[in-house]
């Protein structure tokens, strides 16, 4: 049987929260592969021959994404017209059933079972519900029922000409509507609550490392954690409390990544403290404060090119410039004058006391009560 699929990314007014700095959450890597990639892979495995993606956004580079995926970029006004046109195209080209899924949640579906249910009930339209009875934006439509399909698309999957058959899933859906949902999904994946498996080898309990990742021997990875392909964790960095460092990301020396996700190609500077955040595309989204901050300073956050050639060239240029820059910096550095005899320097009156007109007294003349204690404040401590 010829079953094809249409995946929708965006398209609804509430979809405005379903992205991180303009990239849909479904297209962001989550433990090594995007949800879009995981869904299409599962569909291919279960015999869905052709998949079209209709998105309001450009395709983000994903090396795992199937090459036979048809990608249509549609602006908001044309989104549902595009969906209808693709449906008609599939129907004309021999499809018998078409699965329509809007990627606003992650669900593990047995497509064979779903298709069989649709056929057994001689249904025109089947809608999928989760275990708790909550309706999902997922349908199976018979390809011959073009008018029914057109009505569904024109009403943004919310109204139907005929009541759809109801198919219940065995699991609950994992929502993917905010950045916090995206982060929660990563944490739940570590505990095996959803079907998302980290893409990589489990080098010790709860720590997955993908091929090509480089972790410095002085860096600490505390389980559960995930280090993506070709990611670099430099000396004295700490990755802890369910943190995810996706492919080609760099965590510089001494930085602590705690309960956070670092998106692909991000570079986090040295000596920073990244906690309860999702970091990427030169932005940091703080989950507790629910605020996204753009960081234009490359010393704090930076983004490497997605092109391998550009990254290699940049690394070569940086390496070539390192020695001359270090030499120049060394030459420019002002040498500190160190007093020949340290005790004299210590005994000298501090300049602040001299400026304030405080007379210097010999140490021997000072008398402190033995119970006197001096304390200096240190910020909030």
């Amino acid at each position, binding site marked *: 049987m010829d079953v094809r699929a249409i995946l929708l990314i965006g398209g609804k007014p509430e979809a405005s929260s379903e992205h991180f700095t303009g990239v849909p959450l479904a297209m962001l890597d989550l433990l090594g592969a995007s949800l879009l990639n995981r869904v299409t892979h599962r569909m291919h495995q279960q015999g869905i021959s052709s998949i079209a993606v209709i998105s309001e956004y450009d395709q983000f580079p994903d090396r795992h994404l199937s090459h036979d995926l048809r990608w249509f970029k549609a602006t908001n006004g044309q989104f549902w017209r595009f969906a209808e046109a693709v449906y008609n195209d599939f129907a004309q080209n021999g499809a018998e059933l078409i699965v329509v899924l809007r990627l606003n949640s992650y669900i593990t579906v047995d497509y064979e079972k779903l298709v069989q249910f649709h056929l057994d009930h001689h249904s025109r339209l089947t809608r999928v519900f989760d275990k708790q009875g909550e309706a999902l934006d997922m349908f199976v439509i018979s390809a011959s029922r073009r008018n029914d399909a057109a009505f569904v698309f024109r009403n943004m999957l919310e109204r139907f000409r005929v009541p759809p058959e109801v198919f219940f899933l065995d699991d609950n859906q994992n929502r993917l509507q905010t950045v916090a949902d995206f982060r929660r999904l990563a944490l739940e994946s570590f505990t095996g609550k959803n079907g998302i498996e980290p893409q990589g080898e489990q080098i010790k309990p709860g720590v997955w490392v993908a091929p090509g990742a480089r972790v410095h021997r002085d860096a600490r990875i505390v389980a559960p954690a995930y280090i993506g392909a070709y990611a670099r964790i430099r000396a004295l960095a*700490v990755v802890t409390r369910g943190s995810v460092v996706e492919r080609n990301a760099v965590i510089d020396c001494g930085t602590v990544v705690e309960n956070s996700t670092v998106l692909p190609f991000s570079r986090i500077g040295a*000596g920073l403290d990244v906690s309860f955040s999702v970091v990427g595309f030169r932005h940091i989204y703080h989950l507790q404060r629910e605020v996204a*901050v753009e960081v234009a300073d490359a010393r704090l956050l930076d983004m490497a090119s997605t092109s391998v050639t550009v990254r290699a060239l940049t690394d070569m240029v940086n390496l070539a410039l390192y020695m001359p820059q270090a030499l120049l910096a060394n030459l420019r550095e002002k040498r500190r004058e160190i007093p020949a005899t340290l005790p004299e320097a210590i005994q000298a009156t501090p300049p602040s006391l001299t400026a304030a007109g405080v007379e210097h007294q010999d140490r021997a003349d000072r008398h402190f009560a033995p119970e006197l204690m001096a304390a200096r404040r240190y910020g*909030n401590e």
Partner: protein
Amino acid sequence: METSRPVVVKRVPERVNLKEAREFLRAVEPILHSDRPQVVFDLSNVRQLDSAGVDMLLHCMSEAMKRDGDVKLAAPSDEAMVILELTRTGRLFEIYDTATDAVRSYSSFLPNVMRQFSAPQSATISFPGAGPKAAASKVEAAEKSESAA
């Protein structure tokens, strides 16, 4: 204990990059070079803060402390607070919800400290927009990073 010395409140501009930080520093330098300067930086307008801005805040604090003064932060915006936490500098400053609280803290500092020692639960320093959980996690994170180091 009351102090008669003036407390200077300065509003930090919306963007604090290298250029803005230099200009701001030039404006506050005379204050920082006075005897025992008491300065409050109002960060409520800050929307973008980079490493130059953080560097400037630390420089101001160090200059003030050289002269037995202090720099306190008031009403930091979420954007400013995220960068201060990211760069681990938030814990170096006393941070208050409002500029008024920060100014008042200069005159009532000693009794507050004494109250803190006698009853730790009545600490007056707050973390704007975060709450006690976040404060606890900060301490935890600080301890963690120290142990990691």
